[in-house]
């Protein structure tokens, strides 16, 4: 729970809300063709509930916000470049929406999708 105190009371943002922002930012990042779960069991469970935070894990320990992204990348792109631009885009969008700094964004490339063979 990220919190901010204003004269009118405090504002709490749940990790799930942050995950939603990160999820949408990830899907708009070039080179990412999908998000995947940390493990198969999770994947099955989340496929059933159509979670809009699928493949995103947000951790807030009261000090730092850490985000883990589990992505599938288009085959034939430079993975390092895609991963770093996902990380930048997500950081930018989350920080803009939240007004709080994000400590770490870990991009886990879970797989590649081949849509064209060269």
């Amino acid at each position, binding site marked *: 729970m990220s919190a901010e105190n204003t004269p009118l009371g405090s504002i709490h943002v749940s990790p799930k809300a942050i995950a939603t922002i990160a999820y949408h930012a990830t899907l*708009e990042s070039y080179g990412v063709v999908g998000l995947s779960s940390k493990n198969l069991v999770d994947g099955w469970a989340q496929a059933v509930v159509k979670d809009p935070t699928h493949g995103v894990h947000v951790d807030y320990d009261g000090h730092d916000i850490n985000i883990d992204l589990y992505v599938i990348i288009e085959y034939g792109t430079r993975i390092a*470049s895609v991963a770093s631009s996902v990380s*930048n885009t997500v950081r930018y969008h989350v920080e803009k929406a939240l*007004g709080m*700094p994000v400590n770490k964004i870990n991009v886990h490339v879970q797989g590649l999708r081949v849509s064209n063979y060269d």
Partner: protein
Amino acid sequence: MLSDPYTDKSTRDSTSIQIDGQALKDLVEASLVWLRTNQQLVNSLNVFPVPDGDTGTNMVLTMQAAFAEIENSSERNFGRMVHSLAHGALMGARGNSGVILSQLWRGFARALDNVEYLDGRGFVQALASARDTAYKGVVRPVEGTILTVAKDAAAAGEHALAETSDLVELLDRVVQAADVSVQHTPQLLPVLKEAGVVDSGGKGFYFILEGMLRHIRGQTLDVPQAIVQSLSTMNLENVMEAIEPGQDYEVVIDFRPYEPLDLGSFYTTLEEMGTSIQVGEGDGMYRMHIHVPTEKRYEPIDYTMTLGTITKVAMENLVAQMEERETPCGGNGQIVPAVIQPGQIAVVAVSPGNGISRVFSSLGAAAIVEGGQTMNPSTQEIIGAFENLPTDQVIILPNNKNIILAAKTAAELTVKKVAVIPSRSVPQGLAAMLRLIPDGDLDSVVEDMIAALDEVQTCEITIATRDVEIDGVEVQEGQVIGLYNGKLVLSETSLENACLGILQHAGADEYELITLFYGSNLPRQDALRIADLVREAYPGLEIEIQEGCQPHYYFIISIE
């Protein structure tokens, strides 16, 4: 100039043009040179402050890697050459735009597998394939980006194919369509419209296509499109940049070449000598600007002598110049914050400049954190400023609306009792500062300070960094703009008019005191002269002028 196989042939009869692997090399080199020429323009269009470098630079580096892959190849087969090119682009893809660009090349190459020569039809098919491949690389394509420009360019090619199969004609149509598409991007992507720019990646892609067309037509590739440098405007003063090691001397040479200048080799040779190379052209004359290390300071002159008649040489020692400039604004003396006794209230003020820091200290601030509009201090820096003060009662004056949040976060992350006064400007911060009673009760002092914020009006005078329209005020790059309590209210061509205009807007004659804090970018004489003008305009008011030393802002004006 690049070797140009087309100008010797009749350009009109362009159906005879056959683009093989070697000709592709020239086209790509032209793209790269043209993109590099306009790199700063593309960079200046960046909207997102994402720290992955600039779009123009990323695209140039990607194209450079692509070109390097084929540069030394003697392959004549077009299909194989373009595959190598795509491979190079993939390996060297930098940043988001670079990745998309590499996908475009990959798709382009795929459609031309083993094609001996590129013809009009093949070109259009390849563009379509480039578009398809690029769109496959993202779940939710954002329109109003390079993707849209690639799509529109491909569509224009397909459309034009009904009328002509001439490669040059098709390329011309495609370039035109890309241009229109780029101009249209703000309509598709709101963030571009807000910022008043077109999409940078799209513009870069346009330059790549246009570079090829310019090459085929034998047009120059060395003169930037938007920022055409003519000899008269390319002053020595406005090419002053930050100095890196190995840039001890700035050498500027005007010369008239004996024969048409081969810019490719000219640049290559200069690049071996130094950095910050700029070449301006006008009426057969060239002006060359370069930064070189001390030991090489005569080399550009010797080299240019071999190419043409030198008419003028200007040389400046940049290091010495920098040292001259580095006398700190606000004097050399240390700024001494107020000493706080245990149990007293300590004030931490965020200040954008040395002069302003001095004023805050003289009013009793216990610690100063440097920061302002373009350099927001981090939460950590703010905490660091008060953590070691011998008291646990702290008041923070952020003095900028962008810093209030960081200050509030700092207040939460400490065990000390910290209050944040939401001062949105330096004058508000100073007004609050005057209410400080170090031995008072924290809550009532805070209440007093917050009440003081509204007693002062803030005007800021700065310079517009790009064309924009906000709140009905139209601003052009380079104009002087005035903000009244954070809101843009006027733009003027002169600093004097802006100062007088903003005071009038603020209804200054209803108040008693005007304090002008002048910035580090304004010489003292100029500031004093403007203060005199203000005195003439408001004879009934007291006018004070202070050295503020803030960057970017000519004046921060407090009216109370």
